[in-house]
């Protein structure tokens, strides 16, 4: 019997080279996805396309298509490593738990939806975090929250939440510092998520016109950002503030115990077989 080492977060890939490839795929796809998020700022702007309006109207569709493709690409490339029943089971069940947590109404309407992707991403690694984030939203869409045009965007950004959390520095030694770090991280992500998620419908809320709060084809990035800033503060800043604060408090309180739990089980999933 050959000696195999098996760790939850790493079972995704059979060869280091393939792991590198998967990572590369994930990164490139994420870049495209990010670009798609920012389409309002990135509209074609050339003399032979002065009818930017037409493209402005195609853009949302085109980018939804693009995002869906990228998601599929990432998932299927990771899937080649997803053959491990343990990983699938843990993913599936944690996803379910996340969906339930989303249903659990915390005080002041905090949702726990980000707790798991962040902490699991941190404990079990970026890829796991990414998948958990992606699947969590897919599942809650299947279970009554509904499939909406924003779904691919939500899935991607929730995936990034887990992904980035996996890239945080490991502070196993100092649990308290760990908790604080994750809490601040949650705060930041709370806002980032809001900013990203508002982008997709920004171009709809305002029609073409000389709005101070609206993107315009051919607007240079800086002023576009300024306008988006205005729009964002007007629309969802306060909501996101609440959510971010919620993340902060939750992680501050829960990060440590949940991490302890996850690491306990990580040991159970870790094994080695020795030839005899």
């Amino acid at each position: 019997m050959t000696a195999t080492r098996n760790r939850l977060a790493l079972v995704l890939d059979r060869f280091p080279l393939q792991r590198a490839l998967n990572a590369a795929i994930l990164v490139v796809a994420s870049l495209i996805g990010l670009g798609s998020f920012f389409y309002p700022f990135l509209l074609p702007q050339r003399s032979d396309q002065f009818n930017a309006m037409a493209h402005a109207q195609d853009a949302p569709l085109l980018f939804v298509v693009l995002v869906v493709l990228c998601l599929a690409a990432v998932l299927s490339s990771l899937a080649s490593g997803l053959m491990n029943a343990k990983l699938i089971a843990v993913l599936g069940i944690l996803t379910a738990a996340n969906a339930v947590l989303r249903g659990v109404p915390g005080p002041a309407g905090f949702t726990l939806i980000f707790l798991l992707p962040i902490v699991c991403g941190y404990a079990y690694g970026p890829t796991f975090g990414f998948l958990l984030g992606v699947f969590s939203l897919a599942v809650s869409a299947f279970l009554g929250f509904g499939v909406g045009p924003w779904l691919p965007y939500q899935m991607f950004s929730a995936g990034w939440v887990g992904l980035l959390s996996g890239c945080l520095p490991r502070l196993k030694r100092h649990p308290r510092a760990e908790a604080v770090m994750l809490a601040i991280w949650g705060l930041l992500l709370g806002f980032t998520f809001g900013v990203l998620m508002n982008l997709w419908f920004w171009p709809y809320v305002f029609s073409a016109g000389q709005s101070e709060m609206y993107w315009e084809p051919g607007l240079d990035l800086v002023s576009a950002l300024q306008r988006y800033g205005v729009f964002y503060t007007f629309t969802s800043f306060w909501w996101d503030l609440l959510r971010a604060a919620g993340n902060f408090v939750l992680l501050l309180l829960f990060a440590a115990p949940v991490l302890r739990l996850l690491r306990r089980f990580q040991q159970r999933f870790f094994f080695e077989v020795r030839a005899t």
Partner: protein
Amino acid sequence: MFHTLTWVLWLVAAVVPAFIMRNPLYLALLLGATWLLYTTLGRTTPMGSSWGSFVKLGVFLFALAIPFNALSIHIGQIVLFHLPESWPIIGGPITLEAVIAGAVSGLALLTILVVFAAFNAVVDHYQLLRATPSFLFQAGVVISIAITFVPQMVISAREIRQAQRIRGHRFRGLRDLLPLVIPLLANSLERSIQLAETMEARGFGSAVSLPSRRRALLSQLGLLAALVGVLVGLSLLAFYPQARVWAWLLVAIGVIGMLAFFAFHGRQVKRTRYRRQSWHAPDTVVAVASAISLAIVIVVRLTAPDTFFYSPYPPNSLLPAFDPLVGVALLLLVMPVLVAPRGAAREASNSEPAARDMEHVA
């Protein structure tokens, strides 16, 4: 009622115009058709419940768009009233054109949401899940597991809450969520080990004949190349507009490459489907109708898109243009209503365990 594929086709045919049109007349038609679809087929299905929330959101955004637009856009000739110029952003003449423009873009958003809401209401999500393309089947399994476990977890969450209560646990602050969350997670993780065992024991994964290392790597490289192609193409567009054609070409090649990879990856999975949904004549009718509708919309978009756009601001007329051909295309989307067998909606309703159980959660 209808085959999942049929519904997906319908969705595409309905979403494309909803996305690319800003002409209130078209949007109104699309909205009408979709609403009709929902009221006749979607109302009694378990997921019909999500319709409400979608529409609410849509109406909210619709209502949001009008004042924002009216207050911040001051061009047009039909002035309703003036706000003092000194006020930032909103100061200036408030024009009818601006109000209309706001309403139209709000309408566009509302339409998109309603289309999706109708889709959610009529499609059988369970079947939708079972129809995962085979190159994504592992993802499908993960989601299916999650959906299978959610109801049990809801129950055990309730158990946990009671168990803690009789230990004197009370809700004073967020911290008191801990005794509820941790056992839930711990139970989940314990179960996941057992589940993994059963899956292994039932030969999960023997379906995928893992390709030789070389082929695996090659296919991965191919995918990476395709993605890079798209990325480069797009950045070309961004920073080097002259190469437009080449850029688009790159994007196209990239996309095709991805699709090819999906196909290849799908072929690795030797996995059969137990229950194929049956495809009836009405399915064909609806599918064809949707295809035609989509084709018309795309062709018109490519050849004479003028009527897709609308702006009330001078020098344009307030009255939108209307192309009967496009109108017909949109009307075709009512087809499901016409050919659906009677009482179809009722059939659909007893076919979604996951969704039904989820209603306890919310």
